[in-house]
């Protein structure tokens, strides 16, 4: 009898960890299946920029030996994962570090290794110095994956790893998760260490998991969350048992809908997104959640405040690279330097004041609701040929759905909630209280237990 009814490369982490635990599936067999999948399709997707096949097989053999001796470390043991290149890995520092050294394994990478995960390699991201081929969307390779965790979106969606670490400064986990039909979690700022994450913007950067199911995000997040003395903004807040406490139940949960902000973004949002997100919220209601309309007036300024902080901190972080970047770097990086330079101290401070105001308004709203629900994207993934080199930056400077939650550091979860007419994924965004990732994980899990969107796989 087959180990699994579905191809091994499409097992969820939750499915695979059960089989590995029960010794019905070997980490070596699983890793080989994922490598075969990479060899079969990554020539079309360009997700990996550094495939560590030999090291992965060595790690898989070690995991197999350990598990066979009865030393199963937990749900991530023997699970093939890959990471966005922005994270340092021993022997493979982030390529966007051009004048600073890597740190060996980033803390999140180290924690995944300690949990027994198999490191498959490093994945492409936007604006890399050597500009490798742009990853393609597995649902239709004429379309983009969304960025900047471009390779992570493509790899997880197409079965080139079971989970990935991404990074999000202005939507870079949630955007590719939405476009590629997978689940992405940006935890609360401070929840996951940024040590070893090459900075784009110190106070906005978040590292988080990208997977094919909400329960998988819980397993990966469990492995990487927690205090790290090497990150000065790491939080000592206690870490919940995300996977253990997950359950199919939103009865009594109060879900706030910031309708005024959705209306603000609506002229730039495709109707299919508004329609499918409205249906997803109605589904949560039918499952027992109470829906409340909420108002957060400063949200309309949050995207630009996020951009001001982003570009100013980017300039400060990349000043030593600037001579090289302005001669040879990607257009987006050059533009960020110009915008960062043009941002004065009064602008930066005003953005921080907006940040404080927005945070206070959201804290008041979260006194009345358990989470927020809103769209996660302006439309389905655009065609590659229709996206200019700096188009992403326009998204950063008009009100949209991602930046406000980098600005405020709130946890957010991207959950697939349907498809456009041309079969491209659409996602719902759930936003939680600070350090309450569990509530949005529970809401997302309940939604997935009662819908089928996340079970669909791309045609590639």
């Amino acid at each position: 009898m087959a180990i699994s009814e579905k191809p091994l490369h499409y097992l969820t982490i939750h499915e695979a960890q059960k089989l590995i635990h029960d010794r019905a599936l070997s980490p070596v067999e699983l890793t080989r299946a994922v490598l075969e999948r990479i060899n079969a399709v990554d020539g079309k997707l360009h997700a990996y920029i550094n495939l560590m096949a030999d090291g992965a097989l060595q790690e898989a053999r070690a995991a197999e030996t350990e598990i066979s001796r009865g030393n199963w470390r937990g749900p991530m043991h023997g699970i093939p994962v890959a990471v966005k290149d922005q994270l340092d890995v021993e022997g493979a520092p982030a390529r966007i570090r051009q004048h600073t050294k890597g740190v060996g394994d980033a803390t999140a990478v180290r924690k995944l290794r300690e949990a027994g995960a198999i490191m498959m390699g490093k994945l492409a991201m936007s604006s890399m110095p050597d500009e490798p081929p742009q990853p393609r969307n597995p649902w239709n390779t004429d379309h983009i994956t969304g960025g900047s965790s471009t390779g992570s979106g493509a790899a997880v969606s197409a079965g080139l790893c079971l989970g990935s670490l991404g990074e999000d400064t202005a939507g870079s986990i949630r955007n590719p998760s939405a476009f590629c039909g997978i689940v992405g979690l940006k935890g609360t700022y401070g929840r996951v260490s940024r040590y070893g994450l090459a900075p784009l913007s110190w106070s906005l950067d978040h590292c988080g998991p990208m997977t094919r199911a909400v329960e998988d995000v819980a397993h990966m997040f469990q492995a990487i969350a927690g205090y790290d003395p090497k990150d000065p903004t790491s939080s000592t807040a206690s870490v919940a048992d995300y996977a253990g406490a997950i359950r199919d139940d939103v009865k009594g949960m109060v879900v706030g809908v910031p309708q005024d902000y959705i209306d603000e973004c609506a002229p730039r949002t495709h109707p299919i997104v508004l329609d499918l997100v409205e249906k997803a919220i109605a589904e949560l209601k039918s499952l027992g959640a109470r829906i409340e309309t909420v108002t957060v007036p400063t949200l309309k300024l949050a995207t630009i405040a996020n951009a001001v902080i982003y570009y100013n901190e980017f300039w400060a972080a990349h000043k030593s690279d600037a001579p090289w970047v302005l001669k040879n770097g990607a257009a987006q990086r050059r533009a960020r330097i110009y915008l960062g330079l043009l941002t004065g101290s009064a602008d930066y401070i005003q953005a921080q004041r907006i940040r404080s105001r927005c945070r206070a308004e959201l804290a008041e709203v979260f006194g009345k609701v358990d989470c927020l629900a809103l769209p996660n994207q302006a439309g389905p993934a655009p065609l590659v040929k229709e996206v200019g080199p700096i188009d992403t930056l326009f998204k950063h400077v008009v009100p949209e759905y991602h930046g406000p939650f980098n600005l405020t550091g709130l946890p957010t979860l991207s959950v697939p909630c349907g498809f456009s007419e041309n079969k491209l994924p659409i996602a719902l965004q759930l936003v939680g209280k600070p350090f309450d990732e569990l509530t949005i994980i529970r809401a997302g899990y309940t939604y997935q237990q009662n819908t089928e969107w996340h079970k669909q796989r791309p045609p590639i």
Partner: protein
Amino acid sequence: MDKLIEQSLKALLAREGLEPKEGDLEQFAEIIELYMGNLKTLHSVDLGAEELGPVFRPEWTAK
């Protein structure tokens, strides 16, 4: 691009010993002008005497 913005950017670049890549100021004119306009919007908000709160701390509440 607005002349004043262009001159400001060139001066800021020169102060850092940098030069824009050829064609960049024309290519990026739209995003730069949009961004500069949005900076004005950011400053048009009346925050009253509200002081800058903690720039950022992971643990935050309404208080």
